[in-house]
């Protein structure tokens, strides 16, 4: 019982020590932080091993009052999901601590930064080990606030403060809904403890009657939807995605921590409540649609960016969309694998980007493509590579997955859609590389194809392993897939629509490269330009929010004068 507590205790202690004594021991600040998080990392690894052999650990630390214990429960639930997350969080946090030693050297807020970093590590660890919705929500709030403080780390800088506020406020919108979900969960099922809640929700069919009984909605669906809005805000999903791309004024280690750790909170929340979500197929479909929209928005807006950190920000948004979409398809375990892979990948990218920017001592712009050689016409190789990546690879993966890994294709079209979206991802990767004129030689093309095949297969293998590791109970994971299964017609339409879109894209790109404007009429060119403007302006969603805010502020000034 003691060791999992120590995993949380070390970063908390480090945060307090650095926060209180940091100014008196500047040379030891980083050491304290690194030692604490590294210790937590080793303990997390040990806990993961120990827990997978001996089973989950569940204990309460602080039931305040006997009658209030059903709400105010502070404790730990360390199951496989938590243990995996703890290893991820502590490993990323340790790396970021080490990276920050040199990166922030000489900064007047050096101690404050390390104190916050350790505190955030503690909060995320407490969040993933929460045994009930109350503690999870409290940690959720602390995380929002700690994120605000670290984003506003450079507080004399007004834009940084404004962006930190934007982030905090968007999270707060999601929190209202999350809290309502908790409120309803307690009202209808009388408990906030995860296991008890899942059991009660599965056994009792509670209905919420609206408008004097005109509309009846399942309590599980309502609760799941309300809580999902909290996840939408934290994981930067449409329409609460606006905060993520604007948080790049923060120090690079913060970006890494945010993109590798904090933003995954939404995916974790859905996974933690997976048995609850599996009771409401309609919620899973909505989760899928929101994820899908976020993928499309994130990926398309990414293409119109010329700032390397913002590009990475939109890329994260798209990846989070995938993760949420995976949950919507019932592939909860796969979402966790995606979360880990993306977290590690994106943290390394951000840390690398920061170094690159500092090395170049320039504005964080993408390298000018002309710098890599003449902007000549794309050769056949680009298109052959693209064709292999976007058309052949997913089909091969699909067949191999079916034969080798026994992914149930008939029972759950979710897995197929997932593979199909691997196809879309490949197209996107190809397009990005094409845009940068990176496919210039057989070596590059070959490496790219091999790497993507390798990643695809690893992904499938990991999916299989993770599903069995995280949800070892017989039929549990299959139940998620079945609950999330889409209507076959919707499924067919989605596949068809996406295939047609990809093909049109490729024909357009090919004809453009060859200088042939076969059927691209004037209006289509205009549409392309308009689309680019739309993407560069992020579909004007941010502008819309700003206008609403300004209207409210104007109204507020009138009220303020007469109060």
């Amino acid at each position, binding site marked *: 019982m003691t060791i999992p507590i120590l995993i949380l205790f070390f970063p908390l202690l480090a945060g307090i020590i650095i926060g209180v004594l940091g100014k008196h021991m500047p040379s030891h600040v980083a050491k304290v932080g690194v030692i604490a998080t590294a210790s937590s990392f080793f303990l997390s690894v040990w806990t993961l091993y120990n827990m997978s052999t001996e089973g989950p650990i569940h204990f309460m630390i602080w039931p305040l009052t006997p009658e*209030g214990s059903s*709400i105010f429960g502070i404790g730990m639930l360390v199951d496989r999901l938590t243990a995996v997350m703890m290893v991820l969080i502590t490993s990323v946090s340790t790396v970021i601590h080490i990276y920050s030693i040199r990166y922030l050297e000489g900064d007047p807020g050096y101690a404050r930064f390390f104190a916050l970093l350790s505190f955030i590590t503690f909060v995320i660890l407490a969040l993933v080990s929460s045994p009930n919705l*109350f503690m999870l929500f409290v940690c959720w709030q602390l995380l929002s606030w700690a994120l605000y403080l670290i984003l506003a780390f450079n507080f004399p800088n*007004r834009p940084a*403060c404004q962006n930190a506020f934007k982030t905090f406020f968007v999270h707060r919108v999601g929190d209202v809904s999350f809290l309502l979900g908790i409120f309803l969960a307690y009202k209808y099922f009388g408990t906030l403890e995860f296991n008890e809640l899942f059991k009660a929700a599965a056994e009792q069919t509670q209905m919420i009657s609206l408008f004097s009984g005109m509309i009846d909605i399942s309590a599980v669906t309502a609760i799941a939807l309300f809580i999902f809005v909290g996840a939408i805000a934290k994981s930067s999903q449409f329409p609460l995605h606006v905060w993520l791309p604007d948080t790049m004024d923060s120090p690079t280690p913060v970006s890494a921590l945010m993109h590798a750790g904090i933003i995954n909170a939404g995916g974790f929340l859905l996974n933690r409540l997976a048995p609850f979500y599996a009771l409401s197929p309609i919620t899973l479909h909505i989760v899928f649609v929101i994820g899908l929209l976020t993928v499309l928005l994130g990926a398309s807006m990414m293409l119109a960016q010329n700032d390397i950190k913002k590009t990475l920000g939109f890329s994260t948004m798209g990846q989070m969309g995938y993760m949420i979409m995976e949950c919507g398809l019932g592939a909860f375990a796969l979402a966790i694998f995606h979360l880990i892979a993306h977290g590690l990948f994106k943290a390394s990218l951000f840390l690398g980007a920061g170094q690159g920017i500092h090395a170049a001592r320039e504005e964080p712009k993408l390298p000018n493509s002309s710098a890599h050689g003449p902007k000549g016409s794309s050769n056949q190789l680009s298109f052959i590579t693209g064709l292999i990546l976007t058309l052949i690879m997913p089909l091969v993966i699909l067949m191999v997955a079916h034969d080798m890994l026994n992914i149930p294709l008939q029972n759950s079209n979710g897995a197929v859609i997932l593979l199909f979206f691997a196809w879309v991802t490949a197209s996107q990767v190809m397009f990005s590389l094409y845009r940068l004129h990176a496919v210039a030689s057989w070596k590059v093309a070959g490496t790219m194809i091999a790497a993507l095949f390798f990643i695809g297969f690893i992904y499938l293998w990991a999916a299989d392993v993770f599903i069995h590791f995280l949800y070892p109970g017989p039929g549990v994971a299959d139940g998620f897939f079945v609950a999330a299964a889409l209507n076959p017609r919707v499924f067919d339409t989605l596949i068809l629509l996406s295939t047609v879109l990809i093909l049109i894209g490729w024909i357009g790109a090919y004809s453009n490269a060859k200088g042939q404007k076969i059927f691209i009429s004037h209006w289509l060119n205009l549409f392309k330009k308009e689309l680019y403007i739309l993407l560069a302006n992020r579909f004007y969603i941010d502008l819309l929010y700003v206008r609403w805010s300004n209207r409210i*502020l104007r109204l507020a000034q009138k*009220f*303020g004068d007469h*109060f």
Partner: protein
Amino acid sequence: MALDNIVPVILSLIPLALGIVWRYSNGSSTIQKSVGLIVIGVLAVGLAYMWLAWGIEPSILLLASAILLAGFCTLLSQENSEQTSAIHTSVLIVLGLSLGVLLNQAMVSRIFLCGLLGFIAISLNRKQLNTFRTKILFLHISLAIIFSLSSVFVGETLQVFARLFLAVTFLPLAPFHFPFVRTIKDAKGALSSFWIVAWLMTGMGELFQIYSSLTTEMLSILSLLALLSAVYASLASLGQKFNSLFVASATVAHVALVWGLLEVFPDFPRWGIPFGITLAFVMGGISLAFSFIRQRYGWKTLGILPGLASPMPRFGVAMGLLVSFALFLPLFPIFSGLMVMPTIITQDIEIAMTLLLFLVVWLGGGWYFIQMLHQTAFGEARSDVPYSDLRLTELIAVSALLLGATYSGVIY
């Protein structure tokens, strides 16, 4: 007369008498501060004695203790200036009167309440006597005095209405908020902080006496009024230029939660009183922190003195902690209320109203508190101001209020 009736009167009269004497004498402010702090210590001992000897109602004990702590913090942190003596005097008079309202019963309590209302009327700035708003304000106070006295003599139903009027005055809901806002606006130095706590604790005491008598219809109307009040006060806070009015409007916005949640959560003392005390301490703390800046630089308008966290790190930390607390205030009554909420079917409309109210206070608070933080602690500091950070006594005062808020909000 029994001892348990005499002791509360004596405890209330000690600071009151001392305050009146100081008002008409020219004593040293340092001596006044020391004597005032000793008196508060004596009162605390007296309260403890009452609790041990007669088992005074815990909610009332908490409310009275909150007033004592606020008085202690105000006296401790008040810097020496021309106004110091007047502030010390006011603190002791209000302390005596509000303790008298809380600790005594029936007629005695009402007399102290009339005294408090009278003192409020006297304290208001007389420069704007002829405005329509001021006339309304004095009419409001006069009505409150009449209701206060008549509540002893009338029947039970009328008594509930009379006390409800007093409760919405002291636990201010729009449009009954004018006296509260004006008192906070006109208060000198650190006095505004003490006034906030005294007002809210008195209001809590009134609500505590009548909450069980409120009918379903009355609760529905109060809930609707609370929602409107929350919208109005939240918008007013967001558009506020002056620091004292900012605190007043933010307080009114959050007080709406108490009134709104009465309909959903039973057992008001379990969730409402700890929340009310936490709210009073946090808002009192913010007001106190503002008063430190006001005393140093004559600062009244938000936004003209940003970036204070750099040259005044103690102030930055204090303000950061206070805002942190303030941002999450709406969660306290929700979670403690859930504990006493029956899990039977509640009307949808009640839940919808609660949600809307929470939404307004939560989002409004998130916006205006952070905006205030950006206008005071964050941003780039001005170079033309001779900054001096908080003194130890000031830091202790703010910390004490924060600890009090933590105790009542989290632990209690």
